[in-house]
């Protein structure tokens, strides 16, 4: 292995190890706080942050699934119509806008609409956040899948078509087999990001459905150490779940790669 390859490998393991080490430090912080806090927070204290975690998880799942479905739909449209490159280039403009600016645009449009229809429901705040994430994450999904779609073989689709396969079968046996690993990867990245993101909920968050991101910062800035402890526990649980999911996902996709190398037995 050349020096450059060793360096590349070293960088990959370093960034992963630093992230894991930070989580270990979080665990140490939790143990340290256990010695300082007397008495320990009761189960009742966890209800409020856990309810916010559930709301955030719901929002994250819906926003992620919508973004992925829309992204696949857009890539497929461009891929099948062969006007791929140019349109994808245009979508890259979304990268010029930080999340917080997109959130403010959504807020401005939403406020205009509320004045127009003269009606507001607290749930709309939740939908505004959903919309802001959707607008921002769809281009991310499109870019992630672009490379795979450009390397897909159209002949395989035609072959299935020739044998009387439906459009769904064409998608499932040719495209889905190639993108399923990446879709799972995108799901994890977006879900993890949206679940704990601070900026968008802080700008357009609803007081009726408070989310986890602002709560984490609020608890961390609190002078009450038990609040920091509660947040450490929740974050450690969430992080462990994500790390286990990531390892399982890659174990699954590397097995798939192995199977695909031998030839797909799904058709």
């Amino acid at each position, binding site marked *: 292995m050349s020096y450059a390859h060793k360096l*590349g490998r070293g960088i990959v393991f370093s960034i992963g190890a630093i992230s894991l080490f930070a989580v270990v430090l979080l665990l140490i912080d939790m143990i340290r706080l256990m010695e300082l806090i007397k008495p320990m927070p009761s189960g009742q204290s966890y209800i409020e942050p856990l309810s916010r975690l559930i709301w955030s998880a719901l929002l994250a799942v819906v926003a992620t699934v919508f973004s992925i479905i829309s992204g696949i739909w857009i890539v497929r449209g461009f891929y099948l119509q062969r006007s791929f490159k140019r349109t994808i280039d245009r979508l890259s403009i979304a990268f010029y806008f930080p999340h917080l600016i997109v959130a403010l645009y959504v807020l401005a449009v939403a406020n205009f609409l509320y004045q127009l229809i003269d009606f507001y429901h607290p749930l709309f705040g939740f939908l505004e956040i959903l919309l802001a994430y959707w607008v921002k994450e769809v281009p991310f999904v499109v870019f992630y899948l672009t490379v795979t779609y450009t390397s897909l073989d159209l002949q395989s689709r035609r072959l299935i078509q020739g044998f009387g396969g439906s459009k769904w079968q064409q998608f499932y046996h040719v495209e889905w087999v190639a993108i399923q690993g990446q879709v799972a990867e995108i799901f994890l990245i977006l879900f*993890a990001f949206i679940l704990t993101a601070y900026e968008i909920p802080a700008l357009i968050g609803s007081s009726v459905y408070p989310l986890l991101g602002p709560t984490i910062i609020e608890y961390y800035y609190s002078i009450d150490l038990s609040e920091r402890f509660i947040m450490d526990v929740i974050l450690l649980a969430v992080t462990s779940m994500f790390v286990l999911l990531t390892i399982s996902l890659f174990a699954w996709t590397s097995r798939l790669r192995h199977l695909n190398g031998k030839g797909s037995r799904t058709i």
Partner: protein
Amino acid sequence: MKQFLLYSYIAMLFYSTYLFVTKKMDFSFILEDPSFGTAIYYTVFITIIIITLNILLGVITGWHLAKQEGLWLDVFVLLPLVIPVIAVMGGLQLGLLWMDIPDHILGVLLIHLLVTLPFSIQIFRSRFVELEEEIPSIVRLFKGSNITLWVFIYFPLLSGSLFAVILLTTVISLSQYAITAYIGGGLIPTITTLLFPYLQSSNFYIVHTAVFLLITIIGAFAVLVKAIILILKKVVTSLL
């Protein structure tokens, strides 16, 4: 789409000029902020360092990952993205405290690097996967050195990815309010930490000014980077 964006920005510019002339919008609240100069300094400093590290580390790692596959490589490169950055922030703060460098620029740089580098690696990796595998051997066949390969062959081919990495890194870095404010302990002000409280304001004109400033900074930076990359590409290809 690009034209639509250009027209909407021009419309925004006219509207901002109108607000400025009618004295409804003014920049005094930002300019008079005592941390304005420091915020500009730290933003420029953080952006330059983060962009440089993202390009250097991203290119090497993207190139490596395009040629080598492995379960643990895939897992480790994705960890900074799937471990919630706020959890990393909580642990990192304790680590920095132990190292006796709390509220320091090093911590801010490290956390900004962790949230941007995986994206840069993926962008370069995708580009290297697209490129012909035979390029290095062809260059060597014609007695070309590593400098010829990277400067005259890879640089023009990677120019699009370079622009994407620089822009994405800047936008992600400029979007980080919570982690910058927390790890920096309020002692490392940036344009984002300065403008974010104004973005939460209920005064429309203040919010408009903050949005206008952020978009103008990013837009001007994107145009500048695009121009620099274009000029460098022309210079390099003319020397070939």
